[in-house]
Structures are given as structure tokens and as C-alpha cells.
């Protein structure tokens, strides 16, 4: 007698099967899907119409914000202030040129097969700061001087993050090497330096830089507010950078050190030719991640009275000419930061996957 025929298996492909597997696999999951789905739909709809459908995009002033949605024309109106701060309008080409050079140096890093992208990146880390040093403040080559008190907006945010990273990289390398040194006193100094800076919040560092730095320096030596903030940020960031780089140094197998010793290389040749190139390559994702967190932390400078992008938006929000635009302003800044940070973090994840050559278990 023939066996009773088995039922055909349930469909395993197609949208229905996908939904059964991923949304309605059990009564519990179905309930969850329905509740969460309801919440998402009821909140996304009004949000969408606030952002797009009911929003006012064009107009001349606050009186044109008639819609019930967001008032985006406020961003439009103040965009120049948000990007350049008080930088004089006829000189803004210098900032634009720097933005362009930054893009030329770093956008190719996202494109896998771009010819010579390594050299672009290297120039971005070494030559570009020098160009910026002459271009942004002016005063040389017949360019008009623009005081740093007039810098602001997105430009200032980028300057702080960019210089903070570039200046802290060499200090971080030295500190990391010092912490791995076999000389107990050098190691001790580096450990204390790193741990102290890492333990205190950035805001106290900025306070210290703006209040106490003038006390620490000899008479006649003084910096303006921006440089003081930069010194604080750099010292603070270099401690974090040192820890990231130390991670890379520790990941280098012992055999590499021993091989270099066997070849008769001295400490500096061993470090410079064998260890650091491998270690730095390994920690690029880590460095990118510290860059992201520094980029976000630069907003803190508004507390000591510098106008970064959040500072310019905040001062516009409290401006009586514009009423009730707080949410729009914050959403705009959040969007700017999000684009940068999300893009860069995706890049670093990509890099991590590519650099992971399977040596780790």
C-alpha cells in the first residue's frame, strides 16, 4: 500500500513567504509587527507633511512662514551666516577654495579605483593645512587679514575638527610609542598624560584653555580665543589618539619586532620602517572613528563663546526677528552633522572590512 502523500512544503520565496518569515512568524511577532507598524505609520505621516507638504520654502522674511509645517526659508535666508559666520562676503572665495581643496583631497578616498588617491589623501594631511594657514586668515601675498573672531559656522566646525585631528596625530603617535617604551620613566610620563586627559570632560579642558592658559604662559605671550580652544582640543584629542594607535601597536605580532631586531635595525628604523607603517594602516578605522567623535564634540566650543555651526544657529533662534524656528534650526544642524558622520562611519566600516585580511581568528 502506498504511503499517504506528504503535503507540499510551504512556499519559501516571494513576498508572502518573506512576510510570513520576517513579520508574522508567530502570534507574538505578528502582534509586535502590528503595534510597531501602527506607531510608525501614524508618526511618519505627520512628520512627512511637516517637513515637506506643509512647509514654507520660499519667501523673504519671517512673515512668509504661513504654512503649518516647517519654516525652511529661515535656513535659506541665514545660510551664508551658518556656513561662514561673520567672514566678509567679498572674501568668502578663500573659504570656498578651501572647501573645494578639502573635497578634492578626501572625496577620492571613497572611490576605490581612483588613480593616485593615496597622494591626494597625503596632501590633505600635510600640504592642505599649510595652504589653509595662509589662505583663511590672510595677511600674506597681499590678502586682506580676517580676524579669527569673524570666523564661524560650518567653516569653524571643520577647522576645529580638521586641525584637531591633524595636530593630535603626531602627538598621539609619540605618546603611544612612549607608553609602549621599555624605559619606565618615559612610560610613566606618557601613561599619566594620557590617563589624565582622558579622564576629564572636554568642557573642563576648554574652560581651562580659555581661563587658565593665559595664566600659564609668560608675559607677552598670548593667543586669541580660537587658538586657545585649538590647543585644548589638540591635547585632549591626542590622548585618545594615543590609545587608538597603541591598539595598533599591540596588534603587531612579536615576530615583526624580533625580525627587525635580527636584521640589526635600531629603534627608530625598526619603528619607522617596520612597526608604524603596519600599525597605522591597521588603525585607520579607529582614527576615522575618533575623528567622528571629535567632529561632534567641536560643538562644545559654543560654550566658551565661539560661533560654530550650532552656535550660529542658536544665536539666530534666540534672535527676536525669527520666532519659533528652534526645531527647524536644530533639524538643519542635525542633518548637516548626520550626513558627515554617517557618511564617514560607513566609509570606516567599509575600510575595516577591507583591511581585515583574515589574520585575526
Amino acid at each position: 500500500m502506498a504511503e499517504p502523500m506528504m503535503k507540499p512544503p510551504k512556499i519559501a520565496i516571494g513576498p508572502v513567504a518573506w512576510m510570513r518569515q520576517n513579520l508574522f512568524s508567530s502570534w507574538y511577532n505578528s502582534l509586535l509587527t502590528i503595534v510597531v507598524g501602527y506607531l510608525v505609520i501614524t508618526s511618519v505621516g505627520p512628520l512627512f507633511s511637516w517637513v515637506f507638504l506643509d512647509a514654507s520654502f520660499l519667501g523673504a522674511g519671517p512673515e512668509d512662514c504661513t504654512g503649518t509645517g516647517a519654516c525652511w526659508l529661515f535656513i535659506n535666508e541665514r545660510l551664508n551666516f551658518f556656513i561662514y559666520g561673520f567672514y566678509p562676503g567679498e572674501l568668502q572665495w578663500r573659504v570656498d577654495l578651501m572647501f573645494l581643496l578639502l573635497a578634492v583631497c578626501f572625496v577620492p578616498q571613497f572611490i576605490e579605483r581612483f588613480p593616485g588617491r593615496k597622494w591626494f589623501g597625503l596632501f590633505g594631511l600635510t600640504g592642505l593645512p599649510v595652504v589653509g594657514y595662509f589662505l583663511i586668515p590672510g595677511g600674506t601675498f597681499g590678502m586682506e587679514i580676517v580676524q579669527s573672531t569673524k570666523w564661524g559656522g560650518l567653516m569653524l566646525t571643520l577647522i576645529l575638527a580638521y586641525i584637531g585631528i591633524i595636530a593630535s596625530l603626531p602627538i598621539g603617535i609619540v605618546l603611544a610609542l612612549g607608553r609602549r617604551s621599555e624605559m619606565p620613566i618615559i612610560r610613566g610620563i606618557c601613561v599619566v598624560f594620557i590617563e589624565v586627559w582622558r579622564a576629564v570632560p572636554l568642557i573642563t579642558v576648554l574652560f581651562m584653555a580659555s581661563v587658565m592658559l593665559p595664566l600659564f604662559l609668560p608675559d607677552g605671550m598670548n593667543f586669541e580665543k580660537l587658538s586657545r580652544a585649538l590647543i585644548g582640543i589638540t591635547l585632549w584629542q591626542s590622548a585618545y589618539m594615543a590609545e587608538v594607535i597603541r591598539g595598533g601597536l599591540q596588534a603587531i605580532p612579536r615576530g615583526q619586532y624580533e625580525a627587525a631586531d635580527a636584521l640589526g635595525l635600531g629603534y627608530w628604523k625598526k619603528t619607522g620602517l617596520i612597526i608604524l607603517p603596519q600599525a597605522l594602516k591597521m588603525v585607520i578605522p579607529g582614527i576615522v572613528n575618533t575623528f567622528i567623535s571629535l567632529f561632534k564634540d567641536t560643538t562644545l566650543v559654543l560654550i566658551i563663546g565661539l560661533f560654530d555651526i550650532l552656535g550660529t544657529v542658536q544665536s539666530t533662534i534666540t534672535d527676536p526677528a525669527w520666532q519659533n524656528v528652534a526645531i527647524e534650526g536644530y533639524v538643519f544642524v542635525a542633518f548637516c552633522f548626520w550626513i558627515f558622520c554617517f557618511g564617514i562611519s560607513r566609509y570606516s566600516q567599509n575600510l575595516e572590512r577591507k583591511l581585515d585580511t583574515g589574520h585575526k581568528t
Partner: protein
Amino acid sequence: MKNEASDLKPASPKPWYDPRVRSVFFQIIAIALVFWGGWSLVDNTLSNMESRGISTGFGFLNETAGFGIIMSMVPYDATMTYGRTFLVGLANTLLVSAMGIVTATILGFIIGVARLSSNWLVAKLALTYVEIIRNIPLLLQIFFWYFAVLASLPSPRQSVDLGGTVFLNNRGLYLPEPLTQDGFGLVWGAVFAAIALVIGLRAWARKRQLATGQLFPMFRVGLAILLILPVLGYVFAGAPLEWELPSLQGFNFGGGISIIPELAALWIALSLYTASFIAEIVRSGIVSVSKGQTEAAKALGLPNGLTLRLVVIPQAMRVIIPPLTSQYLNLAKNSSLATAIGYPDLVAVFMGTTLNQTGQAVEVVAITMAVYLTISLSISLLMNIYNRAVAIKER
């Protein structure tokens, strides 16, 4: 005859090629540089302070502060000393850090587990949350909650009223305050008795399991004891608890517990921001436990709950705890952003107002940094002890 071995001995190196000599030399230079740097800093500071007429020393801590603070956990008024303002600030910092750590942990674990949910919608929603929140600066989020959300709440007279007991307006959140009456000691006694009983029972259950292999439903029984005993104590003592309700007095609410909007904004922002990082830590911790572990536990016949409790969670925690602690430290450090919205934490009160009034920047900054350093180092120390305890024992 000459001993030939002595010819083969390496010539003793020149002292400047001897690594030991070099290392001593460099270390002496390093010490000299540090001392020179430190000395010139102190020297500059002292002469600068003298020329500006700033006094030194910690005597200012005993002077009258003379300014009000909008919120304090310890008794404070304007007639008290600067030393007291330090305590007020410190208590407020610890309060918001503790509140933030609790909520961020709960939220972070929920979102982290949701990231791994088999439900597509829930997993994607958790991913969206994490990717949006952690890529936006914390200060911006604090501003958003304080200036955009909480400031747009109605005024005290039009407060949002939840059942006549909880009120929400732009001055803060007002909750009823429990006032313990005589005889509440019995409830505390019952709580301690329950805890002692559970600990004893646990020891007995473990002993019995080792001897006979029988399992005891410890979790359920323990929970029941912990809940029932205090309730019994409460009933026997004659319900010794009264609630003081907040009520509108003039232009604002009085009575009850109030949470000022500065605290609320800081708390919400810190919790949401840190939760997004904790979620990723939890997710990676759970993922790190290899599938073979779960399968082996199943093969041994462990039920699902026990597999989770005895196999997966202990191994995941080993991965989760170290980065989790550093997130807690970050949260405590980030609570100093309070100064941007005027919540009276250590930095805002002590490094802000007290510093401005006394002008003694060096002492104030040193004390503040020492506090953060102490918190940070003690947590790292605990962390290292814990790490040593849970590290894989390799033989």
C-alpha cells in the same frame, strides 16, 4: 699559552652605543624636561597671578557664596560657603549621571536585543534609531529637548494634568512625594529580612543541587519572597505612607517632587544618546557568542531559559562589560554639558559661578579635574578587577 676564548669576547661597546646607558640618559633628559616645564608653568602662573592681584590657596572655600542655585540635593542657600557650592554641584552631577546610567542601560539593552530580533520591522526600527541618534552631537540633542521641546510646553496654569497627581508644564514635571510615617521601619525591616532569606535560600538550593542534582525554582520563589514580605510588613504597620500632592500656588506649583526642565532635558538627551552606543555594544556582545555554544547547550538538554542564563549571557557579558563601563564614564563626563542649559552640575556651579566670583581659576579647575579623575580612575580600577575575574582561565 694565551686563552683563546678571551680574544673572541666582544669588545666592550662605547658607552654611547650601550642601550642601557642610552636609556638612562634619555630618561634623565625626559625628567629634566618635565621638571623644567612644570617649574616654568608654576613660575609663570604665580607671577601672573601676583601681577593680577589674584590670591592663592583654598581659603575661599570657607567664604560666603551669596548666590542662589535653582536645584540642590543637599541643603543650600545663598548664605552658605563656596565649599558648599562644590558639594551641591557634585551631588547634582552624580544624580543626573546615576539617572542617566539606569535609563540608558535599560533602553540600550532593549534596543540592542531589538537589533537582533527576527522581526524585520523591529530590527530595522532599532537600526534606524541607532544610526540617527549616535551621529548627531549630544549638545545639539540637549538643546533640542530643552529649547525646542520642553520650552514649548504649556505654562503652569495650563499644565498637562495626569489624574490630578502628576503635572507637566514648562517649569518642570511635578510628582507626588511619598512621606514616610511612624512605623515605616517595619517595612524596611521586612525588606532586609527578605533579602537575607533569599541569600540563605540560594545557598541551600545550590548545595542541594550539587548533592542531588535537583533544581530549585530559585528565581520565581525569590521574586515572590522579595515582593510579598515588604507588602506584608506594610499592611501590618498600618500603611504608614502618605503622598504629598503638588498643587498650584500662585504662579507655580508647590509640594511634591519637582523635576526641573534642565534636569529633564539633560536626562532625556543623555539616556537616548548613550543608549544608542550601549545598543551596539550589547548587539556585538550577543553576536560574539558562537552558535556552537548554544547548540552544545541544547545537545546537553538544557532548556532555553537556562541556555540563555548559564551559557550565552555569561559569555556575552565578558564582551559587553568593558565597553559598557567606558560608556558609563562617557555619560558621567558628558553630564558636564549641563552648563550649556544651566543645570547646576559641578562644572556649571563650581567651575562657572564660583570661579567667576572668586577668580581663583587654578584651584577651582584643579579641584574639578581631580573629581573627574577620581571617578574615572576608580571605575577603571573596578573594571580591571572585574576583567581579571571573568577573563577566560587559560591553563
